[in-house]
């Protein structure tokens, strides 16, 4: 595969926190392809957030290499370029908004990068439109809901015209409708703009919508594959401290009861089809 088809490439990547004895990330090799939607799962302390921070040069590898759009994150001079290519959205909506007006917050990164004012105006408008927040451009961020704040944070990243958006548990503190807002936004950007997405999450239902899933454990990649391949390994996924989607669990219960249903069912609609098939085959 040609280099430009990969947005992020990690090769034998390790990271040790200062004063720590254990490797937080321990020999990880992986890649994020152009236009791919990748979910990273793992219990707390599994290394998934550390991995995300290595992906946009917030951390520099202890060993191994990360290339972001061909740029080596160990090179200090490339840090700003790397963060423009790979933008990050964090967990707490209240910790990443810096301005007192929504559109000024979106402009923050652009101003720091010396983008001309005319161009800034265009990019703010585009970015806010892309996250459906245009009507809030003049509003004060503290009057917004959690989901709206996260969409403003995504707009701030989008304005930099990134190739990859990394979301580090960005839905963890949101209510179900806020989570749906963020997930719909990210999926649309992935589909329509071709932006690659790295989604770090505890929600199996969110990971189930990704193209590819990686499960981290003890700093290593413990499981990887399509959501179907990963979640059908119910026992293994549980042993790694994760849930399986409820419908996958149900499918496994039915199978162990001797019923001929697929073991890799993920959604309610798929289960409906399986039950219809079961009843018509009698």
């Amino acid at each position, binding site marked *: 595969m040609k280099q430009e088809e990969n947005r992020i490439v990690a090769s034998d990547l390790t990271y040790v926190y200062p004063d720590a004895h254990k490797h937080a990330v321990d020999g990880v090799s992986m890649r994020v392809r152009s236009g791919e939607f990748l979910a990273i799962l793992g219990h707390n302390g599994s290394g998934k957030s550390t991995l995300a921070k290595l992906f946009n040069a917030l951390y520099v590898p202890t060993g191994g290499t990360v290339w972001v759009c061909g740029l080596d994150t160990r090179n200090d001079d490339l840090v700003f370029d790397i963060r423009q290519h790979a933008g990050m959205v964090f967990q707490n909506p209240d910790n990443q908004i810096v301005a007192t007006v929504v559109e000024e917050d979106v402009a923050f990164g652009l101003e720091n990068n010396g983008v001309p004012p005319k161009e800034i105006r265009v990019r703010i408008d585009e970015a806010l439109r892309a996250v459906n927040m245009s009507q809030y451009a003049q509003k004060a961020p503290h009057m917004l809901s959690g989901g709206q704040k996260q969409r403003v944070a995504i707009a701030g990243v989008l304005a930099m015209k990134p190739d990859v958006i990394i979301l580090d548990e960005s839905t963890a503190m949101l209510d179900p409708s806020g989570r749906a807002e963020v997930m719909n936004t990210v999926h649309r950007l992935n589909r329509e703009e071709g932006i690659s997405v790295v989604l770090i999450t505890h929600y199996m239902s969110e990971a189930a919508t990704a193209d590819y899933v990686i499960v981290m454990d003890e700093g290593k990649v413990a499981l990887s594959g399509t959501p179907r391949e990963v979640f059908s390994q119910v026992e293994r996924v549980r042993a790694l401290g994760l849930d399986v989607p*409820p419908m996958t669990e149900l499918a496994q219960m039915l199978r162990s009861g001797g019923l001929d249903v697929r073991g890799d069912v993920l959604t309610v609609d798929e289960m409906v089809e399986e039950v219809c098939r079961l009843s018509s085959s009698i």
Partner: protein
Amino acid sequence: MSIVIEHLNYIYMSGGPYETHALHDVSLTIEDGEFVGLIGHTGSGKSTLVQHLNGLIMPASGRVLVDGMDLSDKQTDRRAIRQKVGLVFQYPENQLFEETVEKDIAFGPKNLGLNEAEIDRRVRDAMRRVALDYDALHDRSVFELSGGQMRRVAIAGVLAMEPRVLVLDEPCAGLDPRGREEILGLIRDLHREAGTTVVMVSHSMDDVASLAERVIVMNHGEVVMDGTPRDVFACGEELRGMGLDVPQAAQLAQKLRERGFGIPQGIYRIEEIRAEIARIAAQGGRHA
């Protein structure tokens, strides 16, 4: 010990441009020993409601009676109320501040003026209830602990007050699945073993479905549903209209009904729908 709420109203920023009527004429009774799941969209008023339960905020109008004592009455001893009704906030670990785990948990009991031996008993008991090893952890800094452990220390601090009623606002928010299981397990045990009344605010319908005996749904500052999980989760359409989910087992039951399968109303647990599908497979359940 019951909590009685009568015609409760609450208004944020009253008189200002952002005035918000957060609670509208809420009346309900929480009986001793109940496990209540309180659900609602963000802004529905559920957090405002639970802050009334121990007198953290006072009604604009209406009354809250805890064990017969009116919280609005100037004569009522608020401290006594807060001993009876323990409130665990969202992200309670943000409020840990003492040097050690033991000191943090002991903070409340100390303020009650209890003697050393009683404080020590309560700290050990609270740590046992949240499954934290006293010997290994009591003199550790709270900031050396994992996120799940910090949250359990914060809950232990409330349990050390030995409340009759435990109110938890989103106790599992932001935890990974294992941490969530641990917290839900300890809440379940407290209810079953110690008979503590529990009011749990949650966005997770699956968590509420697995624990609560009674579900109260709030929308726009009003109580719009109040019943068993079976009755409430049977109203999938209405819940979705309020921006809420229903458990996936209930969604599946509804969709199978729409396809003509004879699935009884009120199914909301995975085990129940499993039994129904097994029955369909055995005898063919689709009505002509």
